[in-house]
């Protein structure tokens, strides 16, 4: 099989988890982006990117980023429903793939400092802030774990071809020190625990190879923290979908 034509992120911008509206954000297209904010911030769904408010570091401890937006034009965005970094949701983010490819093994969710996909240096902060501020975490507030946390549900599409998507909340909240050691493998019809996404060290792997040439949507939740001990700046870590195809 050839590579998939469509592999993309989509966000629930609908009324609730139970009544989702899945918005495909065609990344790689100008002004299409996910933006992070605090619910107490001054941003709105028509705030241009250049005016997007900064998030200040806390003087101690960590701050949970509790609001995400999906923008499809510079001043056209929507709040991501349930994007508050808690486990009180189930339809927030999905990875969506088409029916043109066949996976060679279970796909994976990772996060890296940038799109060169380097290894992390856990607990080490850069001199100038960048994506590694988040991915490396701090030896204090996050116990050297990445400040990006993720929980994923089941397989999205099983090896047998059945859809495998959640209908109830994940159920628990992450903390800045949440994380696994190595790969966290999903099980059918089950939420994983919260794990940190730290390059190729800590990540989530689909426990099944989804059925061949069958479209699928794999649900996951995200949480991101800002810690007092990080180096600030323009922090643009990369959320990545690693996969193989035959």
């Amino acid at each position, binding site marked *: 099989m050839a*590579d998939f034509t469509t592999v*993309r992120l989509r966000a629930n911008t609908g009324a609730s988890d139970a009544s989702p509206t899945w918005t495909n954000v065609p990344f*790689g297209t100008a002004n299409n982006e996910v933006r992070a904010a605090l619910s107490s911030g001054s941003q709105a769904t028509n705030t241009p990117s250049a005016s997007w408010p900064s998030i200040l570091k806390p003087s101690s401890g960590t701050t949970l980023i509790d609001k995400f937006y999906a923008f499809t034009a510079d001043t056209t965005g929507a709040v991501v429903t349930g994007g508050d970094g808690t486990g009180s949701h189930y339809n927030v983010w999905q990875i969506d793939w088409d029916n043109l490819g066949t996976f*060679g093994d279970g796909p*994976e969710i990772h996060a890296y400092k940038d799109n060169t*996909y380097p290894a992390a240096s856990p607990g080490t902060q850069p001199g100038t802030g960048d994506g590694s501020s988040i991915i490396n975490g701090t030896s204090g507030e996050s116990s050297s774990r990445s400040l990006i946390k993720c929980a994923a549900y089941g397989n999205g599409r099983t090896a047998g071809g059945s859809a495998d998507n959640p209908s109830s909340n994940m159920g628990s909240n992450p903390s800045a020190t949440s994380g696994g050691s190595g790969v966290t493998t999903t099980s059918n019809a089950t939420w994983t625990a919260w794990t940190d996404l730290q390059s190729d060290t800590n990540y989530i792997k689909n426990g099944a190879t989804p059925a061949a040439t069958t479209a699928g949507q794999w649900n996951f939740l995200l949480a991101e923290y800002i810690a007092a001990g990080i180096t600030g700046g323009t922090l643009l870590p990369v959320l990545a979908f690693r996969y*193989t195809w035959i």
Partner: protein
Amino acid sequence: MLLTVAHYNQIQQGLSFWKVKLSNGKVRTELDRVGQRALDWHDDLVANGDTAHIKEITLCTPQGDACMKIARPHSTLKLNGGITDLFGGQRQVTFQLVGRVEDSEGRCTCCVWDVLGQRLYVDFVTSVHSFGAWRPGVPALGALNYSGMGVRL
């Protein structure tokens, strides 16, 4: 085999391509055209039973060719890896591998073109049931969908 501009371009971009020699002497490469589309491993080799007739598979890379003789029918592996930046839309190929399953237990020997590292790894021995990392810093693949590649143990 006559190399085309497509083959040349693939190498110039730091990518690799596979080619197989069949028992009837025919050579097929992934850059061959079948009508209006590119040759496809599944549709054009697995589906018509040609994976039973592969005698040789070669991974052509910017660092030279790695050739493997194939003795058993339905024992040839082929796999690509990629990564998509979900926040930025960039998609890139990370590796391409070809290989040979050695026994009914799934032990296999592979050649890997590591696109990110621009390095060729040969004679990498692992298992289709628990495919390991060919270098530090890349995640192990785990259990492969080998039957989808046309492999029978």
